[in-house]
């Protein structure tokens, strides 16, 4: 089924079995990391363009590395170095890359729906690397992969996402992916950071962290941005830390095997205390490693039918 898709824009409409197929593919990709030669010829002759209209270090380098490990040719365009500063539209920039031979366009943009807009207008495959507050499917998948690898099947697992849900594409992609796999999804934050009617998706919303943490299998802690405080959505970082920060005391109430996750970049001492970030439950660095595997899997799956799995060997 996945091989039929031209684009990969979000997890909303990806059924559980397809997500599992991606996770399985990512696992084979991850095997490559342990080899002395960390590269396979799978996407030789394919061209991947990373179009990043927003600053990004981790996602951009992760896609870069993923494409290179599959032997694709990679071009990376960022906003400051592109014609966007000269007034060129998003679509024209992307079309320019397409006619130069891009097979897959990886796009990061601050506007929700930007990836879909390109997908509708390009023949090349479009892979969403984050569009505003809408979706960041590779991040959602790498988070899910990390839980799956550590704890097994996602069905009925209780996963809590803490923080600025309203403005978070990471939250939205986690929510859809986890729901489609049958997990129980909780979100927690001050009401000012919880979007309206989100319960209609099937998630449970909490405004008290201690209730939300009860019996969870994993807690995914989102970065809290200073600009949200400045725009009046909560009074201070200090109060946020007091009310929602994951500290030793809160961590100690978790089940033994429960995971602590953070999509990064972290504000140590705000949403997560350093001792928790570096503690025994934390899988934050593994999330980063898994990100490369997930992105390799998606690049492979989007590369077209002629690219076969055997080439991975």
């Amino acid at each position, binding site marked *: 089924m996945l091989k039929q898709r031209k684009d990969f824009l979000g997890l*909303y409409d990806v059924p559980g079995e397809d997500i599992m197929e991606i996770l399985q593919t990512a696992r084979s990709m991850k095997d490559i990391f342990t080899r002395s030669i960390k590269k396979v010829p799978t996407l030789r002759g394919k061209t991947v363009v990373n179009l990043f209209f927003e600053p990004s270090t981790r996602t951009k380098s992760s896609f870069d590395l993923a494409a290179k490990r599959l032997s694709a040719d990679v071009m990376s365009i960022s906003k400051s170095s592109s014609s966007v500063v000269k007034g060129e*539209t*998003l*679509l024209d920039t992307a079309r320019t890359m397409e006619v130069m031979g891009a097979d897959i366009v990886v796009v990061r*943009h*601050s*506007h*929700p*729906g*930007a990836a*879909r*807009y390109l997908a509708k207008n390009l023949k090349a495959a479009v892979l969403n690397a984050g*569009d*505003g*507050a*809408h*979706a960041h499917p590779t991040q959602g998948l790498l988070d899910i992969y990390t839980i799956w690898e550590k704890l097994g099947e996602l069905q009925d697992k209780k996963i809590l996402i803490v923080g600025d849900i*309203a403005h978070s*594409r990471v939250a*939205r992609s986690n929510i859809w992916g986890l729901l489609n796999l049958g997990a129980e999804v909780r979100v927690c934050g001050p009401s000012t950071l919880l*979007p*309206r*009617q*989100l319960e*209609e*998706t099937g998630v449970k919303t909490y405004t008290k962290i201690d209730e939300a943490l009860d019996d969870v299998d994993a807690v995914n802690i989102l970065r809290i941005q200073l600009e949200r405080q400045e725009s009046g959505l909560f009074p201070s970082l200090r109060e946020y830390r007091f009310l929602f920060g994951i500290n030793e005391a809160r961590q100690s109430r978790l089940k033994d095997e429960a995971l602590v996750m953070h999509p990064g970049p972290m504000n140590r001492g705000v949403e997560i205390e350093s001792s928790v970030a570096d503690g025994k439950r934390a899988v934050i660095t593994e999330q980063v490693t898994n990100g490369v595997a997930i992105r390799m899997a998606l690049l492979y799956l989007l590369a077209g039918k002629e690219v076969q799995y055997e080439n991975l060997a």
Partner: protein
Amino acid sequence: MRILLKNCRPVDPEMEIPERADLLLEDGRISQMKTTDNQGDSSAGSAGIETLDLKGAYLLPGLIDMHAHFREPGYEERETIRTGSEAAAAGGFTTVAVMPNTRPVADNPATIELIKARAAEVPIDITPLGSITKGSAGSELAEIGFLSQAGVRGLTDDGQPVMNSEVMRRAMEYASDFELPIISHCEDLKLAAEGVMHEGYYSSILGLKPIPAAAEEIMIARDIALAELTGARLHIAHLSTFRGLEMVLQARAKGIKVTAEVTPHHLTLTDREVLGYDTATKVNPPLRGQQDLKALQQALSQDEIDVIATDHAPHTVEEKMGTFDSAAFGISGLETALAVLHQELILTDKLDWKRLVRLMYYNPAKILGLEAQGLRTGARADLTVFDPDKNWQVDTDKFKSLGRHSPYNGWELTGKVLITIKDGRIIYDDRGDQAEILY
């Protein structure tokens, strides 16, 4: 010139009327209406009479749209008075009130005179609205007396709501001296907070910045309070929420002079349409929720809404392309309004033709103080012929308007404007294969 319209179904809620009628138009006026005689063909063949067999199509008084943006002067790349008029004629409108958010803003008699001069070159009637404040900047009153002298029939800062309540109060008081209604675009800009769609489930899953319904309702409440304080005539533009409707009804019950208009898109579409991020669905006020839609539809059938107005808001292709966030607000609405209302509301028994004629002819005329003789003998022959059986597909590329953005693009519709007549002259005729403007 004499025209005989044979075998039509005339609609006029203000008069006793035959079910099937033939109308004779002479010297720009309706000179005769009589019951269609199916037996013979007595009046045919008279010399010098152009006879049109309407085959049972509906005949309405020429529709009045009291809320459209024709963009001239200043934004002629979006629309001109000419292209807007052609779109109006194709949509069955013979009178259009045009909004003052031009460049310069229509806050002075000279701009009003310019619009009237341009309007004199097109066959439909255009009634320019004036702004409430200078430059629609919301701080100083426009020269309302001079605007009134220039023929302005309503005042509005549409698109740039008057946020200062003291200014709005004084505007209402001052406008009352000239019997002018204040047409209010109700939006608390701080609460709307640069949102791009209705706040609800769909904004939450799409990650688009939300506009809460309360941003509109707060200002409706404020303006009603000010209308009560001042005794002014208040007209709520593009009412879109069920709570806003409740407030209007309560105010009216208390005797406050408040009327309200609703757009065809708020009567037929919801925020669900935004799934897919089609910028043609980006409009202000935003497409609302299911509960709002149902309440507005129900209010229509209980005569609780005064006017249906298009809020025709054309933009260039460039302004509407790109991402949802970057696109301009607005729908090009004149050319689909009547057909959409017919299919979605009349054919589903939520609205009938008589009510429609009140909502799109008598009531807007009354609010703006325009002549409205309907289909009476001696009335100006401003007429709209609507064929309820004609099937067509909306194709924005074929719009007369320069605004090529519509959430109805691609829709298959049953029923279409067939002929539009202004002052006894056919200005739009779609009986042939090609829709054609004849003026």
